[in-house]
């Protein structure tokens, strides 16, 4: 699926446009990271790009069709959203949670059929949590919840999933579990837009990265070429250094100005 966002603008109040002109494009199998400081509008951008908010100006097309002219059902069959972690009120099982994703395929008074249960079984297997199927969603770990929510998006039939800081609050192992499932699904052709505060994740798992600053995403490209000490400095107003690991992988470190030899003062 091709998702093309051009010159998108959005404002919560007329005085200040939080997004002034964002242009991004995403092809099948792409994982795009959106980086940017707090309050730069990453979540707003995700909500506009996934069709949940009407932008002030600009357009989003999905395979050439205007996203905002699609019916809510059709939109939900094409685009899914994995929200930031939340504590659910009622103890639905993982299966019941994922089954909710079938809603855009059912009528207003419809109930899930055997076929819907079958789809749910497949997507639960696709993200590798079949052993959790009958467990309460409230009783599984944060990383497992994210996988269940990815499965819910897949159950919608979505080819493109938006993830809003999917690994916030997760330990490194669970971060990797979630992101490697994302990577694996991308290799099967699903596209992902991931907001994150972790430039290293963009380097590790991303095909594309875009920095959101001052309502624009002018700095974008492949992570290897786009994430530099200069772009990081502009995005986060802080100094970073890029270090290279023994296996050729690169990582971002904050540059700390410490007394180089604390013993001598």
């Amino acid at each position, binding site marked *: 699926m091709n998702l093309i966002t051009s010159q998108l603008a959005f404002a919560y109040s007329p005085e200040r446009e939080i997004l002034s002109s964002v242009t991004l494009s995403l092809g099948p199998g792409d994982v795009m990271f959106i980086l940017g400081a707090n309050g730069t509008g990453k979540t707003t951008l995700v909500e506009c790009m*996934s069709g949940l908010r009407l932008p002030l100006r600009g357009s989003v097309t999905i395979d050439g069709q205007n996203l905002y002219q699609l019916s809510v059902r059709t939109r939900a069959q094409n685009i899914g*959203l994995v929200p930031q972690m939340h504590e659910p*009120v009622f*103890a639905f099982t993982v299966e019941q949670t994922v089954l*909710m994703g079938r809603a855009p395929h059912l009528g207003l*008074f*419809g109930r899930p059929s055997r076929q819907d249960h079958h789809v749910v079984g497949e997507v639960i297997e696709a993200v590798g949590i079949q052993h959790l199927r009958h467990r309460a969603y409230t009783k599984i770990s944060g990383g497992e919840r994210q996988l269940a929510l990815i499965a819910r998006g897949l159950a919608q039939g979505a080819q493109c999933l938006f993830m809003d800081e999917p690994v916030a609050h997760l330990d490194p192992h669970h971060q990797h579990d979630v992101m490697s499932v994302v990577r694996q699904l991308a290799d099967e052709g699903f596209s992902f837009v991931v907001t994150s505060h972790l430039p290293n994740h963009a380097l590790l798992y991303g095909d594309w990265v875009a920095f959101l600053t001052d309502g624009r995403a002018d700095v974008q490209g492949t992570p290897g070429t786009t994430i530099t000490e200069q772009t990081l400095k502009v995005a986060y107003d802080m100094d970073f250094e890029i270090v290279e690991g023994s296996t050729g992988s690169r990582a971002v470190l904050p540059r700390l100005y410490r007394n180089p030899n604390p013993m001598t003062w």
Partner: protein
Amino acid sequence: MIRKDRSVPWILVLLPVSAFILALFLGRYGIHILDTVRVLLGLDGPSDVFRALILRVRLPRVLAAACVGANLAVVGAAFQGLFRNPLVDSRILGVSSGAAFGAALALLFTSQGMIVQTSAFIFALVAIALVMLVGVRFGSSTLVLVIGGILVGALFNSLLGLIKYVADPLSTLPAITYWLLGSLNATQWSDLPPLLTITGVGLPFFALLRWRLNLLTVSDTEAMAMGIRVRLIRTVIVAVGTLLVAASVALAGTIGWIGLVIPHVARVWVGPDYGRLIPASAALGAATLILLDTLARTAMPSEIPLGVLTGLIGVPAFFILFLRFLRTRGEAQ
């Protein structure tokens, strides 16, 4: 593999039906249970007195109890999901306060049941209309609706206080107090058509929509991303739910705890999935209120107000459920 518990649907029917028959044959005048069944099936045998007692006196009252119990429980279950808050019941939107004010206002001038019922119903709708107005103005989020409900409820409670203050303490005030306690005493066939009609439309609505209620327990953004028109569907549920509550409260008075406790008992039984929770809440609500109302009219020489009884049973029941909840969370031994 789909796990199915086939025993549930049968109990769903059996529970209210057996409560129904039990309630018809229990009472001040002893009637043999077989005679009760014979009367219900329209067979010959029992005397005309028994026939009249069952069909004219007990049947309308038991029917009303069944409808009110099912309505309050189903709306309570739906609203708990809608507001994503397990402590919510049908009174959250100020509907009951509006109905109480309407009934008290009518009781100032008349003791005629139909007028009191109509006035209670109308003011319940006025209350929800005010809440909806606030909602439409400020975006219909659950928070806005809850705040609107609290404000409107408080407003009508104050007005109710005013009416109690001006009411004749010897005749009108006791009538108002008794109404507020909630009772199905003296329910006649002529009182039933509004309740039966609204229940007949509203409950099937919730039964049809029940699976989709699951989607309202997640955040608005998530539900929208799954193709749900959240505001529209929420407004429709609030509207239909309010009609069910208004019709129930208008006839029976303010009966608490059913709408809060029954959905939780049902959750323990069938789980949180609204596909099963709605039928289970309806069956449990109907059966419980039938039995409590039977207790209300048979336990003591004079009738115990039903609302008092639901509280006396509901409070400990809720406490037990709450302990169970804490235990599953590991917050109590």
